[in-house]
C-alpha cells in the first residue's frame, strides 16, 4: 500500500505509549496500596489501637495524592481508542467495548462511591461500614484492572469471536472465552500481582527512610512487616504467572518470544539468555541484531516455553522466511494469503451488491480459507521485516524486568526477616537498599508493559489488524500537537505529585491534620 501515512501511525503510537506509560506510573501504587491500607485498617478495627488508625490515615493520604493523577491519565486512554484508533474501535468494538463498559458499571462506580466514604466518612459511618468501604475501594480498583486487562489479553490472543463479512468486523460469540482467555488470565494476575509488588516496595522504601531518620518507628516497622509479607506472596504470583505468560506467548506470539530473547535462528534445546548486550550491526545482515556478550543457559528457553527441553523454538528468521521442516509459513507467504483474504472479502461485498451469488459464495470461501492471515495483507508489496518488533527494546526490557523481579524476591525475604527480628535499625545497608529500590520497582513495572506492547508490534490485534490499518484519519500535525500537550501537562502533574508526596512523607503521620482528626474522632 502506498497510501499509508507512516508519520501519523508513529505519532499515534507515540501518543498512546506516552499516555499508557504515564498512567502506569500511578496505577500500580493505587492497586497495591489500596489493599495494604485495607489490611492496616482491619488491624485497627480488630485491635482498637489508635496508632494503627494513624498508620492507616497516613498511607491513605499518600493513596489519595496518587489516585487523583491515575484517574486523570486513565480517562485519556479510554477515549484514545476512539480518537486515535477509530478503525480499531469499529473492527473490534463488538468485543473490546464490552469489557470497557463493564469496567465502568461494575468497578469505577464502586471505587468512586466508596472512596468518598473512605476519605470523608470516618466520623459519619460506623467503624465496620468504613472498613467495608475501604475494602470495596480496593476491590473496585482491582476489578477495573481485570476488565481492561481482559481486553488487552484479547488483543494479544483473539478468542471467543468470529469475523462477520457482512459488517466487516469481529463479533463476540462466546463471552466466557473472552473472559477466560489464557492470555487474559495470566496477564491479569501477573499485572496486578506486580502492582502489589511495587506498592509493597514503595511502603518498605518510605518506611526504611523513616527508620534511617529515627522517626515514625511504629509506623515504619509495622508497615515493613506487613508490606514484606504482602510483597513476598505477590512476587511469587508474579514470577509464576510470568512463566505462564511466557508459555502463552510461545504458543500465540512466537515473534514476541523470539524478540524478547534476541533469537534469530530457531533451534531445539534453545538456550535462555540470562543476560547479554547487543553490539554493532553486521553490514551484511542489516535486519539482525548481534550479541556482543551474552550468558546463556542451555535448553532453558525450550523448557520455559514448552516444558520440554528438546522443543523447537522458532527464531525471527524462521518466522520471516519460513521453515518447512517445522511447518512454519514465511511472512512473505502469509502476506500473499492475507492479500488474497482482503481482496476476496472486497469481491464478496461487491458480488453481494450486484447479486452475483456464485461469485459471492466462491469469494467468501476464499476469504474464509485465508482469514487467519488477514492482517498480513496490509503489508503487501512491503518488506516483511516491517513485521518484526524492535528486538533491542524487547530484549532489554524483558531482561530488566526478570532480573529485578528476582532481586525483589530477595529483598522481601530480607526485610521480613530483619523486621520480624526487630533488627532493622542496625541494618543501614538494607534500609538504604530498600529506599533505592523504589525507582527500580517503577522501572521493572514499566519494562513489563514495554515487553508486552513493543513485543507485539505491529499488531494491534494479533495477526488480524496491524497498526497501519487501525488509526484514525487525522493530520499528523494534529496528533503531534496533542502529543506535546499531553507530554507537558502530564509532566507538570507528575512533578506536582512527586513534590506533594515528598512533602507529605516528610510530615509523616504526626502531622496536624492526622493527629487532630484522630483526637476528634477518638476511637471511632
Amino acid at each position: 500500500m502506498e497510501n499509508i501515512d507512516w508519520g501519523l501511525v508513529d505519532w499515534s503510537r507515540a501518543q498512546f505509549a506516552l499516555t499508557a506509560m504515564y498512567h502506569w506510573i500511578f496505577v500500580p501504587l493505587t492497586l497495591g496500596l489500596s489493599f495494604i491500607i485495607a489490611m492496616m485498617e482491619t488491624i485497627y478495627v480488630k485491635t482498637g489501637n489508635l496508632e494503627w488508625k494513624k498508620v492507616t490515615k497516613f498511607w491513605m493520604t499518600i493513596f489519595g495524592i496518587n489516585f487523583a493523577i491515575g484517574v486523570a491519565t486513565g480517562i485519556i486512554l479510554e477515549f484514545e481508542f476512539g480518537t486515535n484508533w477509530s478503525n480499531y474501535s469499529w473492527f473490534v468494538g463488538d468485543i473490546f467495548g464490552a469489557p470497557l463498559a463493564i469496567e465502568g458499571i461494575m468497578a469505577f462506580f464502586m471505587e468512586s462511591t466508596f472512596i468518598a466514604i473512605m476519605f470523608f466518612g470516618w466520623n459519619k459511618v460506623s467503624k465496620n461500614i468504613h472498613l467495608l468501604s475501604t475494602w470495596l475501594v480496593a476491590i473496585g480498583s482491582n476489578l477495573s484492572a481485570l476488565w481492561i486487562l481482559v481486553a488487552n489479553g484479547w488483543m494479544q490472543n483473539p478468542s471467543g469471536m468470529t469475523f462477520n463479512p457482512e459488517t466487516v468486523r469481529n463479533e463476540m460469540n462466546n463471552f466466557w472465552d473472552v473472559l477466560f482467555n489464557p492470555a487474559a488470565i495470566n496477564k491479569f494476575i501477573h499485572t496486578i500481582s506486580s502492582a502489589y509488588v511495587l506498592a509493597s516496595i514503595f511502603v518498605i522504601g518510605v518506611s526504611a527512610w523513616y527508620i534511617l531518620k529515627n522517626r515514625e518507628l511504629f509506623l515504619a516497622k509495622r508497615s515493613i512487616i506487613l508490606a514484606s509479607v504482602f510483597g513476598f506472596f505477590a512476587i511469587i504470583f508474579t514470577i509464576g504467572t510470568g512463566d505462564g505468560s511466557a508459555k502463552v506467548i510461545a504458543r500465540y506470539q512466537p515473534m514476541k518470544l523470539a524478540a524478547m530473547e534476541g533469537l534469530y535462528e530457531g533451534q531445539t534445546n534453545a538456550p535462555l539468555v540470562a543476560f547479554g548486550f547487543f553490539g554493532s550491526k553486521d553490514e551484511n545482515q542489516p535486519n539482525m541484531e548481534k550479541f556482543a556478550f551474552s550468558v546463556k543457559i542451555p535448553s532453558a528457553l525450550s523448557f520455559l516455553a514448552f516444558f520440554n527441553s528438546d522443543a523447537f523454538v522458532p527464531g525471527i528468521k524462521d518466522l520471516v522466511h519460513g521453515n518447512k521442516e517445522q511447518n512454519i509459513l514465511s511472512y512473505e507467504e502469509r502476506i500473499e494469503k492475507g492479500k488474497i483474504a482482503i481482496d476476496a472479502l472486497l469481491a464478496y461485498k461487491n458480488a453481494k451488491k450486484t447479486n452475483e451469488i456464485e461469485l459471492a459464495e466462491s469469494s467468501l470461501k476464499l476469504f474464509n480459507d485465508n482469514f487467519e492471515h488477514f492482517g498480513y495483507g496490509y503489508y503487501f508489496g512491503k518488506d516483511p521485516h516491517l513485521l518484526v518488533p524492535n528486538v533491542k527494546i524487547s530484549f532489554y526490557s524483558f531482561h530488566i524486568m526478570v532480573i529485578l523481579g528476582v532481586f525483589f524476591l530477595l529483598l522481601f525475604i530480607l526485610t521480613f526477616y530483619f523486621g520480624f527480628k526487630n533488627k532493622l535499625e542496625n541494618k543501614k545497608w538494607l534500609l538504604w537498599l530498600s529506599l533505592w529500590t523504589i525507582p527500580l520497582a517503577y522501572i521493572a513495572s514499566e519494562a513489563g508493559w514495554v515487553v508486552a506492547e513493543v513485543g507485539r508490534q505491529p499488531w494491534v490485534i494479533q495477526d488480524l489488524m496491524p497498526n497501519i490499518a487501525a488509526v484514525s484519519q487525522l493530520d499528523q500535525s494534529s496528533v503531534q500537537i496533542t502529543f506535546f500537550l499531553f507530554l507537558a501537562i502530564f509532566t507538570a502533574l507528575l512533578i506536582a505529585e512527586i513534590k506533594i508526596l515528598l512533602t507529605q512523607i516528610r510530615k509523616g503521620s504526626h502531622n496536624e491534620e492526622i493527629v487532630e482528626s484522630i483526637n476528634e474522632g477518638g476511637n471511632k
Partner: protein
Amino acid sequence: MFENLSHLSLQQYWWLIDSLLGALLVFLLFVQGGQTLIYTLGKTNGERDIVVNSLGRKWEFTFTTLVTFGGALFASFPLFYSTSFGGAYWVWMAILFAFIIQAVSYEYRKKESNFLGKKTYEFFLFINGLLGTILLGTAVSTFFTGSMFSVNKLNLLNLSSDRMPVISSWETPFHGLEAVWTVDNLAFLQNLALGLAVFFLARTLALLYFQNNIDNEEINARTKKCLKINSVLFLMFFLFWLIRLMFIEGFAVNPETKEIFMEPYKYFNNLIEMPIVLIIMLIGVVLVLLGLFMSIFKGKDNGIWFTGPGTVLTVFALFLIAGYNNTSFYPSTFDLQSSLTIENSSSSHFTLTAMSYVSLIVPFVLAYIWFAWRAMDKKKITLEEIESESHSY
C-alpha cells in the same frame, strides 16, 4: 431472557441505557457548574474551601459517569465511537483536557509544595467547568444538527485507494470545531445555544445543590442572588434551542429501505408519536421549574431534589427523540446515507445480549450510590467539619 429479544429491541434497550447515562451525566455536571462559581460564592479562603469541599465529595461521580457513558457507547454503538471520537478530534480532545486538569485539582489544590500553586488549580477547575459543559452541550447538539463525516466500511478493504484504509472520515480539516460556525440551517446558533444552556444549567444545579449541602449564611445569601440570573439565562438558551428544535427538519430513516431523508418537524413528530416520551419530558420540565420556583420564590433549600430529577428526565427524553422512532442519532450533513442510526452502528445481537445481563446490576449500583450519598450528606457541610477531617480539599 435477553437472548429472546430481537436485535432491534436490544438496540433500543441500549439506546435507552445510554440515554439514561447521558441524562445522569448532564445532571452531575452540577459539579462543573459549581467550579465556575468558586470565586463568585466564596469571598474568603474559608468560604472558597467550603464550596470546593462540597463539590470535591461528588466530582468522582461525574467523572465516572462520563467514563461509563463513553464505555457504554463504545460497547453498544461502536461505529458512533469510531466515527465521532476519531472524527471530531479537537472537540473530544478539548473535553478530555478539561477533565484531566480537573481530576488532580481537588486533591492538589491545598497541598503543600503543589508546584503550580493553589490559584492555578482553582483556574483548572474553572476551565473544566466552563469548557466541559459548553463543549459537551455543543457536541450533543450535533446529534440533531449533523456533522461533516462519511462512513464506508469497504475502505478497510480497498488497498489501492489514495487514502488511508479508514472506515470513518471527517470531511473538514477542523475536526468538529466547525460545529460553532456552520451557517447551514443556522446550525451554529443551535449548537451554541445548547452549549450555553448546559453551562447555565450546570451553574443553576450547582447553586441548588449548595443550598442543600452548605451551612454558611454568607454563601447561602450569595447563592440565592446568583440563582435568579443563572436560571433565567439557562431557561432563555434552553427554550430557544428546544423551540427551534421542534421546527427544524430532522434526519429520518425509512424503516423499509433504511435510507436517510430529511423530514420537516421530525423531532416534534417524534414527541407526538411517542407520547410516553412526551410525558417524561413534560414531567421533567415541570420538576425543573418546580425546583427553581421553590428555591427562588419560597426560599426552600430542597430545590435540587426536584430540578435534579427533572433534568435527568428532560435530557433522557431528548436523547430518546434523537435515536428512536426511525431517527438518525448521529447524522451526517456531508453524506446523508453515512448517517448513524441505532441499527446501523450497533454491536451484534450476542454482545448486546451479554451486555444487557450486565446492565441488570445498574439498580444495585444506583442503590449503593444512594446509600453513600445519604451517609455523606446527612449533615450540611461547614468549615468546622472540613477542618476536623484529615482529608480535605
